[in-house]
Every structure is written in C-alpha cells, then in structure tokens.
C-alpha cells in the first residue's frame, strides 16, 4: 500500500517533529510512505482570503504530486478538508478536472481517521502516562467527522482523557483571521485556555498545528509555561 504523506506547510516550517511522527505511525503500520519533495501548501490560506485562482493552482499542484499514491494522509483536518471537501464541492465543481479531484478526495484521509478507519490499527508505537484534554479542531470535526478517532488512539497509547467544557468550540485561530482580527481571535483563544485550565489536564492535544500554535501562544503569554501542547501524532508515536 503506497501512502503519500502530505506534511502541510505549517508542520514543514514550524514543527517537523509532527511530520516525522506521522511518518513513523504510517511506516510502523506497514505502509510504504512517499513524501513528494515538491509539496508546499494545500492552498487554503488563499482560498479563505478570496484568492480563488491561487487556491486552484495549488490544488492542481497537489493533485499532480500525489497521483501515483493509493492513499494520501495529512496530519491536519484543516488541509484535509480543503482537499477532500473544498475542491470537489466548490473549487472544481462543474469543471473538467472534477473527476480527478473526486478520486483524490476519496483516497485522502486525515491521519487519525486513516489509522482508525482504514488501517484499523490496534496498537500504536508510543505510550503516554498522564492526563490530556483534547481540542476538536473545527474543519476536522465538522467537515470530516473526526471526533472519536484521535481519542481512541490516545487511549490506545495509555493516555487518560479529561474532556474540557466546549471542546468543539473554535479556538479562534481561523488562519489569517488570527492576524486580521487578532483581538477577537485572542479573546476566543482565551476562552479555550480557560476550558483547558479547568479540565485539570497537564497537556492539551489536538490534530491541527494552527490551533495548537494559537493555544500555545496564548498559554505562554499568560504565564503558563508548563502545560504541554502536543499534536496527537507526537503522543501516539511516542515522541511527545
């Protein structure tokens, strides 16, 4: 089974460890993983800022890069939503390349969804001794139905989950929203941080790096230097 890893631009730039954790998880489950070197970004920043044509040219680039793969996996619900939902329901609707994007969408999976529902893994390489709370990122949750998958995997690694109040509420990241309307974004993030603190967990885990950087940035600014902020891939790969 040839699986293409879509690293995501944020992971590439900021937290390569998440990419290697994803790689380890896929390889240890027996996948042959390819990582196309020319990959950059799924195009969502352009798409959500009104730059539709830029988003389309990047989507075409991704399509070409992963053409030979049986599956494509990304450690992000947000980028996966872009390639699984936005391309077929909006960007290429009624266009000649739609069938190709439909094929890509069908073989594209968010990492936890792929591990649980396609590979049906029963064990993960990592173990985690401690209590975590899980933040449901919006795109993964509402576009792709990612909810129980990461929790199932975290428990498989031995983590205890202390659910926070409002785990499905947006953290305020929203891509460029976090900069354009930074004050509102920060207030939304503060609400999320309050929920995290109230959960009593020592680590906040999520599946999208954008949200995690936002949450980590607010926690640190408000003097919390100890709560760990982790991608679930790091936890279950034993690299948290």
């Amino acid at each position, binding site marked *: 089974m040839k699986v293409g890893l879509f690293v995501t631009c944020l992971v590439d730039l900021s937290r390569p460890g998440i990419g290697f954790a994803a790689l380890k998880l896929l390889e240890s489950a027996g996948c042959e993983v390819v990582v196309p070197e020319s*990959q950059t970004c799924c195009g969502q920043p352009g798409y959500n800022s009104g730059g539709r044509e830029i988003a389309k040219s990047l989507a075409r680039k991704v399509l070409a890069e992963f053409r030979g793969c049986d599956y494509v996996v990304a450690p992000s619900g947000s980028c996966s939503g872009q390639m699984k939902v936005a391309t077929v329901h909006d960007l290429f609707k009624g266009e000649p390349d739609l069938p190709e994007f439909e094929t890509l969408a069908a073989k594209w999976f968010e990492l936890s969804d792929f591990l649980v529902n396609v590979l049906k893994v029963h064990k993960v390489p990592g173990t985690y001794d401690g209590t975590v709370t899980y933040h449901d990122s919006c795109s993964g949750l509402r576009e792709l139905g990612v909810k129980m998958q990461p929790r199932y995997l975290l428990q498989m690694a031995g983590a205890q989950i202390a659910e926070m109040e409002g785990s499905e509420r947006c953290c305020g990241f929203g891509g460029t929203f976090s900069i354009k309307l930074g004050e509102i974004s920060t207030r939304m993030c503060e609400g999320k941080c309050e929920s995290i603190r109230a959960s009593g967990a020592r680590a906040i885990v999520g599946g999208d790096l954008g949200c995690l950087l936002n949450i980590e940035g607010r926690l640190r600014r408000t003097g919390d230097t100890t709560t760990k902020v982790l991608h679930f891939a790091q936890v279950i790969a034993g690299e948290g």
Partner: protein
Amino acid sequence: MLVQSMHFKQRASEKLGDALLQGNMRKAKGKFVDGRAKAVAEFGVWEELRTHAAKIRDRAIANLDAYLVEFERNATRRGAVVHWAESAEDACRIIVEIALQNGVKKVAKSKSMVSEEVNLNERMEAAGLQVIETDLGEYILQLAHEPPSHIVAPAVHKSKEQVADLFVAAHGKPRLTEIPAMTREAREALRGHFLTADMGISGSNFIIAETGTTLTVTNEGNADMVTTLPRIHCVITGIEKVIGTMEDFAALIRLLPRSAIGQTITNYLTVTTGIKMPDEADGPEQMHIVLVDAGRTRLVGSDMQEMLRCIRCGACMNHCPVYQNVGGHAYGWVYPGPMGSILTPAYVGLENAGDLPNAATFCGECAVACPVKIPLPDLMRKLREQQFDRKLRPWTERAAIAAWGFVATRPGLYALMSKLGARVASWMGGREGLIHSLPGIDGWTKGRDMPAPAGRTFRELYKRRASHRA
C-alpha cells in the same frame, strides 16, 4: 439605520473591553445554545426536517414572482391593501402617508427587523407621529435610545439592573429588582398604548400565498394586540418571507422556535387574514401590507440567493463564537452575526461592509445550526472573493496573498524561503522558543506569543534522513 459596519474592528474592540456587556453576553450564550441542543435532540428527525425546510424556502424563492402575486390576490380578496416598496425610502413614505391620511396620532408597533432596516421609527417621528415599541426588548431599547443587538432577543446585551434603571427613569416608580415585577410594570405602561393607538404596525415571519395570510410569532402576545385593537393594521415585511401554503408553514414553524431559543412552540402565534368582516367581533377596519424589496430581488439568481432562505431565527449568531464575544452592535447595522455578515454587504454594499465577510474563523457552527441549511461560511467566502477581486481589501493583504501564491507554486523557491524563514524565526524565538513581537503580524503577537519554529524544516530533515539511509 446608519451603516457603521466599516468600523467593525474598532467597534468590536470597544465591546471586548466592555466588562458589563461581556458579563451579559456570557449569561445569554448558554441559554440559547443549550436550549436549542436540547430541543433538537428531543425532536429526533431534525436533519430530515431541515432538508425539507430548505426545499420549501428554495421553492418559494424560485417562484417568488408567482407566489407574491398570488399572495396579493388572496390578501386583497380579504380586504387588505398590498403595497410594493422597492426601496427603504418607499416603505417609509407609504406607511407615513397611510398614517397621515387617516389622522393617526399614535402608532403601537410589535417587533419588526424590516422596520429597523428601513428606519421607519425615525421617519414616523419626523412626521409628528408618536411611536411605541411594544415588544418588551424593543420597548427597553426605545427607552435607552439604542438599536437592537440581536434579531430575536433585541435587548440581550442589557442586564436586569440596566433595565431596572431605565424603568425608574421612564415610569417614575420605585426601582424593581425582580423580573416578573418588571414585566408587570412594563405591561401596565403598554396597555394604555394598545388601547389608544390609532394604528398598529407588525412585522411578519411568514406570509402565505394560498390564503393571503400574514403570520407573526411572539412570546408576549403584543402582536395580537397591535393587529386587532387599533383601527388600522399595517404589516411591514420583506418580499422573501412568502411561502406557498399553510402546510409549508406547519413545517417551518417546527424549526423556527426550536432553532431560536429551544422552544417547541412560541407562546403566541398571530395569524391575520384581511380586515374585520361584518360577522367578526375583532380586527382592524383597514389592513395594509407593505412588501419591501430594498435589495432582495438583487440576490435572486446571484451567488447569494441561498441567503434568501433565512427565516430569522438567530441560531447562526447564537452559535457564532465571534458574535458571542463582541455582541450585535459591533456589526454596525441591523443584522448581526453570520447572517448579518452576508445581508449587510448584500443590502448596503460590499464597499460599506468593511471587515464583516472576514469576521469569521469558518468554524462552521452557524452552518450546522441553520435550520434551512444556508451555507453561511461558503457565502462569506464568496464575499471575500468579491472583495479580493474588487480590490476592497488593503493592498498589503492582497500583496501578501499574491506573494505567498507566487512562492508556494515554485517548490525550489519555497524550499529556500521556508528554510531561511525557519532559521530566522527560530533565532528570534531565543532560548524559550517564543517570539513576543513580530511586525506585520502584531494582530497575533499583541495578545499571544508566536511559538518559534524548530529551526530546520521537515523538508531538510527528511532529505538528510533519506541520504543517510541510502
């Protein structure tokens, strides 16, 4: 209402700093969201009903011309007069003329967002008419000289204590502390107005083509009073409120109060069909129905057509994390929250709507909550595309997107830039790995640190690993 939407960012900032408002908003949030969730869970076949309702509304919009003519024919047959108002100005002129021609002195109004949209109160007062809002929330706001901040609960931004102060000033009675006593006092103050008003004005949630009926839901019964007691009843509503049949209404009314505040049914449902007939005990001598376009027909056949499905339940704003934090007044016009971020540019111009299409993280909660399945985030994104194409966003933002697109489509350049970026940002993060301030993204760094990159990109490290393995 004067459009202030171009100042959204500034207004939102003020609201975020208003501790009293923040407390009031926090209290309201749970009530709306939890109430709806419970009502939806109890209903059981909610998704099927939503799909059905979206079809009902789509059919009405597709047949808008035919349904409206049918409505006019049936309403006229029952003695009502239907007026067509192409603009907000027309709507005001028509209603003021009706009032003046009939020697009206006092007007009692039940809640109408369309009347807010066209500035009706101001125009009537300028013509020398006394206007009394009789919806409790609207009554409070009339005393406070404020516009509504929510389409269903207009005074949701006010606390009990703030209302108590307003009542002392208006009613001249001792200050009350309990809500039931306060509502009793308001009811006593309003009762006289119902009985002495020459004209009643109501909005309408739905108008029914097959019968010529207008329907209004309230929880206070004030619409019953203003539609039956005064000798003249005037309805003001948007042309898109039309639906085909009572059967259609039966489906929609199951969605509306549940979506709005988790109610299975509203306390009152005011159904008015024409004037008082010779064999009837109650009802007005004249009934006028003012159907307002004011930008609505422009949406038919456009990218924004799905917005015309809206049944004004307010679920999108109740569930919007941006609205929950800044409140309705920040949005700067009549309609706040996600629906307002689409209707404001549609009705008053994208160039006047400022940041509204961008006032969303696209978290998708509104799209899930919408009872008629309006793809609100998708419509907001289309407006962002229009802003981008029409160069309505700052040039710096457009340049940044273009530059990013240029680099991201050139892998070699991208690899070099990301490698340099990761190095520089990592160095800036210092030992603690946090960037405290970064020009260009101070929207982020004012309230948050930016966790610094690790230093090497995944691409570099992966290449190294591959060559190591080989």
